């Protein structure tokens, strides 16, 4: 019982993390119909920027003030939003009308650039680092003998707040209506007077900010910051992407559902089956979904225009 509850809680935390990252994939795919390969690197940069900011503000040691975490988080999200904006503006926008393969390759190029530029000595360097302990790992409360650390609670709550905010943004605001219009058909949207470029830019910024939040929380929870080109980050982004596909890519609520489903599969399989093969289970789910439900569990089938 204890084990089960503990895994449920871990699923909840990991799922929240995946959800934050998956939303960026799904937003961009929903609007531009392409996979932003550099998204996982924005996650990485978010985490590393938080690390650098924490160091610069002198909060790297213990005993940092309570408001340290929100400040760092906000700065990292802001910086990542600018990064996302620049990526779209510099690399993707010139290719808006290009074949998808070219855009995909560009995205991989951007991803490689970020990964390897991040390892330069005057950026983040080639050594893994440890994220400062900004949130207590002491248990906040106990459920069925399972101690729940503060960091997990903050992670889940923050993710919930951001997801709800995004929901509101997409379905209740003028911006959200513009986004949905562009996602439906960008040329028609442009004819209707919607500033498509701007909507795309802002979508990238929102997605990147959420990715950075994911990155920072990942850093706070797991503490280990691998170098920017490390496969750990690629894998993290990849699983979040799988979550987006499983939930039905382009579908905001689906991404959240997919994230928790995937986290559940990963955690329970790791706990009750072979822990080393957790990634294999995740991709097993992906292939099964692609085979039997190509539009994802929550569905967003897109008919190609003829």
């Amino acid at each position, binding site marked *: 019982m204890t084990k089960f509850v503990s895994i449920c809680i871990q699923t909840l935390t990991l799922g929240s993390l995946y959800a934050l990252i998956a939303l960026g994939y799904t937003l961009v795919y929903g609007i531009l119909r392409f996979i932003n390969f550099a998204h996982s690197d924005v996650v990485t940069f978010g985490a590393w920027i938080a690390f650098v900011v924490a160091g610069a503000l002198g909060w790297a040691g213990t005993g940092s003030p309570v408001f340290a975490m929100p400040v760092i988080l906000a700065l990292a999200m802001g910086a990542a939003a600018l990064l996302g904006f620049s990526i779209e503006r*510099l690399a993707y926008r010139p290719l808006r009308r290009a074949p998808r393969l070219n855009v995909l390759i560009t995205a991989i190029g951007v991803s490689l*650039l970020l990964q*390897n530029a991040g390892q330069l000595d005057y950026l983040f360097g080639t050594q893994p680092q440890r994220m400062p302990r900004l949130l207590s790992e002491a248990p906040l409360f106990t459920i069925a003998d399972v101690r729940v650390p503060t960091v997990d609670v903050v992670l889940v709550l923050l993710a919930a707040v951001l997801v709800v905010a995004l929901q509101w943004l997409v379905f209740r605001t003028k911006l959200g209506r513009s986004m949905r219009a562009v996602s439906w058909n960008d040329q028609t949207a442009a004819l209707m007077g919607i500033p498509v470029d701007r909507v795309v830019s802002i979508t990238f910024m929102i997605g990147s900010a959420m990715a950075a939040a994911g990155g920072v929380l990942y850093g706070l929870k797991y503490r280990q910051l691998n170098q920017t080109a490390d496969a750990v980050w690629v894998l993290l982004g990849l699983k979040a992407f799988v979550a987006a596909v499983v939930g039905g890519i382009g579908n905001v609520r689906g991404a959240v559902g997919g994230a928790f489903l995937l986290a559940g599969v990963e955690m329970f399989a790791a706990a009750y089956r072979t822990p080393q093969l957790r990634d294999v289970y995740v991709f097993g789910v992906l*292939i099964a979904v692609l085979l039997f439900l190509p539009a994802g569990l929550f569905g967003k089938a897109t008919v190609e225009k003829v």
Partner: protein
Amino acid sequence: MAEAASAPRPVASPGFGGAVARSLWPILVGFALAYAIQMALAPMLPDFYGKLLVDIGIAIVLGVSLGIVNGFAGQFSLGHAGFMAIGGYTAAAIVYYGSIKLFGTKAIYGGSLGPGELLLLAGCIAGGLLAAAAGWLVGLPSLRLSGDYLAIVTLGFGEIVRVLLQQTDDVVVAQAKAEATDWWRLLDNLGGGLGFIGGPRYIDAKNPFWVWLVVVVVCLVAYRMKYSNRGRQLLAVRENEIAAEAMGIRTTRAKVSAFMWSAFFAGVGGGLYAHELGNSLRPADLGFQKSIDIVIIVVLGGMGSISGVCIAAVAVTLLPEVFRSFSEYRMIVYALALILMMILRPQGLLGVKELWEVEWRDVGRSIGALPAWLGRAPGRAVAWLGGVGRDLARLPARVVSVFTGRDPDDEEGDA
């Protein structure tokens, strides 16, 4: 190269022997060529260059094989190293354990074209077949959907292969123990995270024969594929999938077939790689990074051009040797090259064309226009970055405007 198929001359019945000769003569030429490289060229080269020659050959095999699925069929695979790993480990297991079981030694056995090398050949082919089977397994679900999915699924596939290989047990080093164990039990002894160590190395600076024979075969296959009816169907899928389907081409089947051929030769290339002196066959070396290296070769050389990919394979193998001191910038340069190539010349160096199809007059004209273009480039770059800067400056107002509905710069359209 032969033009036999595209010429409209009537095909007289040449008899069985004639048909076989027409079908296979390039293989014989390739055999002779590889043999000449082995006997004449390799002995003359210092070991450093000899190894480069082998490395170039393997890069060509991997690049051209990826070109089949990426260049011809227009599908994007990020798991080429995964197929390479499957082929490499299969071949390594067959050669290492096979040598012990068959020849009673784990060292190099037999001379040139001797039993040991034939075992290598068998291992490579088996590795290729297994890789092709894996390609079928991965390709069937993802190739039914749009191209992006293949990229993601193959990326995941490569990681799975890596993880699975890391879970395997140590290589059985003691010969007596390996002899005593059933062969199928040995399939789990692939070295885990340490890699498959201790196998015989049939390929080195002085022995490039097998690599270059495979180079000839893979180039021949790619060439004949590209200029055949089936190959043109692949190109059609790449050019316009909806039209291809509407003309009666079974697009999924065509894509899966291209994917399997690509995986087959990746597997064979992996088998060669595994038996080259100085290479370690470790899961970590055959991960995402390796796949990207191969993608870069194809994208730079030209998606759909066999000769372009060969040129890029040579360049990408040699450049790091030339710029050794800049190794930390190597990937940054590649990344920038990819992005700029997509923005400025999306079809790659040669595009779909082969070296001998290029209109050199056009090339001359392009080179002639280069100085003027370079002269304008700084100005344009400044304007481009200026546009970005202006957009950034306007950003806060715009973000606000999206919520309020008022437009701060309605009078001027977006650049």
